[in-house]
């Protein structure tokens, strides 16, 4: 999804940044502001959430802040469905997920893939 959307929008993304944090290889508008907010939400640290949320609000406004919170929240559900039901990771993006892409992004180091051998 990320790779496809950045290609169509003519943005650049370094797939490693998904697992390792943002680098200059990712050129998506306001990427740092949004990723900082997303990481704070995952950490469940109220002070960090408030601080990063304020930056999103100051930078992108009310509606984008609400939508950023909503998108990050949505993926707190999707991951739990995928991982509790044991959906095959090879079927991501209608089966377009490629082993090379998982390797490039660092996803092959994840527990479930390592356990699968």
């Amino acid at each position: 999804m990320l790779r496809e959307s950045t290609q169509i929008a003519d943005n650049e993304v370094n797939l490693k940044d998904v697992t390792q944090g943002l680098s200059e290889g990712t050129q998506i508008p306001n990427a740092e502001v949004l990723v900082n907010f997303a990481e704070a939400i995952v950490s469940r640290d109220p002070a960090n959430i408030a601080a990063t949320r304020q930056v999103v609000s100051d930078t992108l406004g009310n509606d984008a802040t609400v939508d950023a919170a909503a998108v990050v929240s949505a993926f707190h559900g999707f991951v739990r469905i995928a991982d509790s039901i044991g959906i095959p990771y090879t079927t991501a993006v209608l089966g377009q997920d490629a082993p090379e892409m998982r390797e490039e992004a660092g996803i092959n180091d994840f527990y479930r893939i390592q356990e699968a051998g």
Partner: protein
Amino acid sequence: MSSVSFENCGFEVRQNLIDAHTDAWDRIASPGTWLTGERRIAVAAEIRQARACEFCAEIKDALSPNAVTGTHTTISNLSDAEVELIHRVVSDPGRLSEPWSQEVLAGGLSEGEYVEIAGTIASVMVMDTCTMALGVADTDLPDAIAGEPTRYLPPGAKVEAAWLPIVEPEDAVETDEPLYPSPKAGYIYRGLSMVPESMRNYWAMANEHYLPGEFIYQFDKTIRALERPQMELMAARVSALHQCAY
């Protein structure tokens, strides 16, 4: 009706998001397919308890989730299998395994109960994370609504692609009621299909947070205040932080 409120968060929250939370909490309080409303509310309370469970924190910090032994700190009268399912899916979802899921089932849960609880976990996690992200307190748990579960088992559900049974689009029948917006629906969409009501309820809520199905593969369009690459970058980072390989 549940009392969802985003007042005092300092943001004007779109009405369809507020409605999605209200509707989802009302459905959680109602009898489901395998669980009563009372048990579903107990599951919701236990989901919140899992965040404060010290044993869960120990498991998450361990190099291997199997390296530590202990007991979850629970606040409900749910079974040990239910508590294990809830706490592990809430706290360390990226390190679950098929043998672990089989152990949970062997602990006395039916596959339908497992899937319905998984759907409830996913729903509560989305809504509680959304309120936390916007700086408001958890919504008060609603009172359970009396009634009996339907105990509907889709005839086409089978264990094949995933650890738990799934109804593939070609195996859906009329009594399942509408399951898929398209026969190409991805596996993340199919995940809860063994309990069609849970699946429909989950996606009705989740679509308002992310995107309705018809927009998922339209990468050049957005109905949100963010550009699609911005949404997908956050989504991918959140998934990676959860060690989700999907």
